[in-house]
């Protein structure tokens, strides 16, 4: 029953994409397809966290930003001026200071082995944190100021490696951060976890936006190289300008789809296997699962990291594709809530649902703007005709309509299809 329904839904989605493609042209629809498949990967990441594990992660934006920063660092050409200056040495010192501070805090946290206990240990830990912070700031501040100056090369630049390595590094970086975040936050339940993860993603955003020496901050980094031949290379190879964009994007699309299919296959297997069964048991009743001997915190940390890896890779892909890394372009609405709407509308716990939701919501999100503009133009003409005058600033107003549409979509979905369009199949032993 659900299989037939999902087939119908996917067929409908295909028709929608064809119609939009017919209206917007091949170059635009390939662009939309690449982005929506990258979002599908991110939605699968959230589906692992929320659908499999029941974890309330509202910090998706932070993971996407980390992925973007990672691919920027790996794939952007080498900044020779930075490597030739004092910068690397100063950064090395800052890293040493960081490690020293880390060792200090670690030592204070384990000071009970030396017989320091209770209140004294707390005081020592706080003191260690303060001293570590001062040591780190005393090294990083001059280093950052030097690198950002003309002599230091402005920023550290990249490593000039292949972008796909950047995607891998994006996943690794997201995993590392997710481990730390998970260690801190996963003891919290639902609402507390939601706010804590939002907070951490805001901290990541503030850091990446203001660490100009690392990411160039608001100055943005572009153009990032593509993992597949770009339009310019194809034009040099003799194809026309219009065709070169379509083919280059199709090449990128193929790469994204390969990653998506591989990931999909793996996590679908994981869902069906004993691991997935255990995760669902923890999600549905963590107390019961804990009493059956499952290590709940550890398993939750596992899904949190796994989901974050997919988000990091997806974020890296999006940045590679757009060829620009702009930390100030990241907004919670576009990069956290949008993904949530995708998973909720599609069907949490079902990977087909998550992918379907991602494709459907992304295309709805993208076409709301031109549709609203078309609608407003007509209303404006009509109101001018009856003497009320035109609507001012149609362009900027119409682009805000998609936020409204997103809100309406999730409200309707929660009311009439609370388990999603392609809900999770609950198997029952006969």
């Amino acid at each position, binding site marked *: 029953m659900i299989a037939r329904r999902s087939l119908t839904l996917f067929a409908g989605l295909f028709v929608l994409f064809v119609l939009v493609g017919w209206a917007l042209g091949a170059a635009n629809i390939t662009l939309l397809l690449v982005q929506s498949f990258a979002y599908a990967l991110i939605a699968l990441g959230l589906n692992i966290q929320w659908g499999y594990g029941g974890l309330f992660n509202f910090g998706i934006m932070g993971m996407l930003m980390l992925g973007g920063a990672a691919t920027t660092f790996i794939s952007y050409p080498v900044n020779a001026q930075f490597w030739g200056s004092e910068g690397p040495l100063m950064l090395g010192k800052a890293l040493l200071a960081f490690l020293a501070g880390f060792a200090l805090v670690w030592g204070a946290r384990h000071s009970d082995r030396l017989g320091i206990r209770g209140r004294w240990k707390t005081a020592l830990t706080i003191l260690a944190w303060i001293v570590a912070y001062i040591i780190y700031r005393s090294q990083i501040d001059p280093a950052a100021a030097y690198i950002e100056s003309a002599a230091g090369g402005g920023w550290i630049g990249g490593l000039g490696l292949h972008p796909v390595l950047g995607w891998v590094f994006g996943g690794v970086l997201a995993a590392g951060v997710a481990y730390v975040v998970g260690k*801190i936050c996963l003891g919290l339940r639902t609402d507390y976890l939601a706010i804590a993860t*939002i907070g951490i993603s805001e901290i990541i955003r503030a850091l990446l936006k203001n660490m100009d020496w690392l990411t160039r901050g608001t100055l943005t980094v572009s153009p990032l190289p593509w993992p597949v031949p770009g339009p310019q290379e194809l034009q040099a190879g003799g194809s026309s300008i219009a065709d070169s964009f379509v083919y280059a994007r199709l090449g990128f699309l193929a790469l994204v789809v390969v990653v998506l299919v591989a990931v999909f296959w793996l996590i679908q297997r994981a869902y069906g296997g004993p691991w997935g069964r255990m995760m669902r048991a923890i999600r549905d009743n963590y107390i019961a699962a804990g009493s059956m001997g499952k290590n709940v915190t550890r398993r939750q940390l596992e899904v949190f990291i796994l989901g974050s890896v997919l988000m990091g890779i997806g974020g890296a892909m999006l940045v590679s594709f757009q060829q620009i890394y702009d930390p100030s372009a990241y907004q919670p609405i576009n990069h956290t809530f949008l993904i949530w709407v995708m998973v909720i509308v599609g069907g949490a716990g079902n990977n087909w649902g998550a992918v379907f939701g991602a494709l459907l919501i992304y295309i709805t999100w993208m076409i709301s703007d031109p549709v609203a503009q078309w609608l407003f133009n007509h209303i404006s003409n009509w109101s001018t005709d009856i003497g009320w005058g035109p609507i001012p600033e149609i362009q900027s107003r119409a682009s805000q309509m998609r936020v409204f549409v997103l809100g309406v979509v999730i409200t309707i979905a929660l009311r009439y299809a609370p388990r999603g369009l392609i809900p999770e199949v609950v198997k029952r032993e006969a």
Partner: protein
Amino acid sequence: MNELIFFFNNVIVAGVVLGSIYAVGAIGVTLIFGILRFAHFAHGDMMTMGAFIAFLLMLAFQAMGISVPFLPTGFLVLPIAMVITAIIALGLDKGFYAPLRRRGARPVTLLIASIGVTLIIQGLIRLFFGSGTWNFFETEPKQLIRIPVPLEGVTRTINFTQPQLLMVICTVVAVLALHFFLTRSRLGKAMRAMADNADLAQVSGINTKLVVRVTWIIAGSLAAMAGTMLALDVQLKPDLAFNIVLPIFAAAIVGGLGQSYGAIAGGFLIGFAETAAIFNWSVLLRPISGALPFEVPATLAVVPTEYKLTVAFVILVVVLLWRPTGIFKGAQT
């Protein structure tokens, strides 16, 4: 002494103003959590909406020529804006949350629904008001109050604006009113009973539907108040409260979700922490620089100004690690 007054103006005054706004917002969040057991994410947008309603009312009042001496029109229209926002809050509950509650949806679903409401309100506000900024004091002057300090050698004065003074007064009045409502009135006691145990409250004959309605009325009017105060202090723009909803949640959680007094404490804690963290402490060290073993740097702030927003979360994370449900013991879903 001059340096101390500089410190007072930049940390104490700013902290009290910011803390009042956070506290008034956080009370609404915490009340809704206490009664309905979900984190109402759309609270920030209810604040923005309240501020825009107050702004429209102010324009209407100015067009009609209604004004009171010594009182900015923004404060004059505040009670009306609070009433209108409270009615809208009731409507939001009826339209969006009540149907889900009737179905017995989990709190998590309500939280996601509140994100939908956030997006809808954001979209509507931007649709009608564009994305520019407005100012409550376009036509009226924003009066600056300077109080000279009667001490020798002091040239600086204690400075704050008239709206800031009125804001703090409004907050004190609102907090006192809420305190007496919760402790003295029958309905307030019913609210506290329901926050403690909803099922027990219902079987002991408390009209829970009425309590829910009253909660939305209080939360809506406080949201309008907090939003308008914020807009009076800075500027009015569509994403005004979207950035501030996070510190407000942090304040509510730090104080313990469901604890009204905790929300006030959390609001002021975070307000002061934010202003103190970005304050340039070398100003205070400079007069005693001769006695210090090290050279005083030009700027010595705990964090650079750009990281102001992160202070709230660092406090949040630290408090949650130390006491997992906030300073005052908060409720769980």
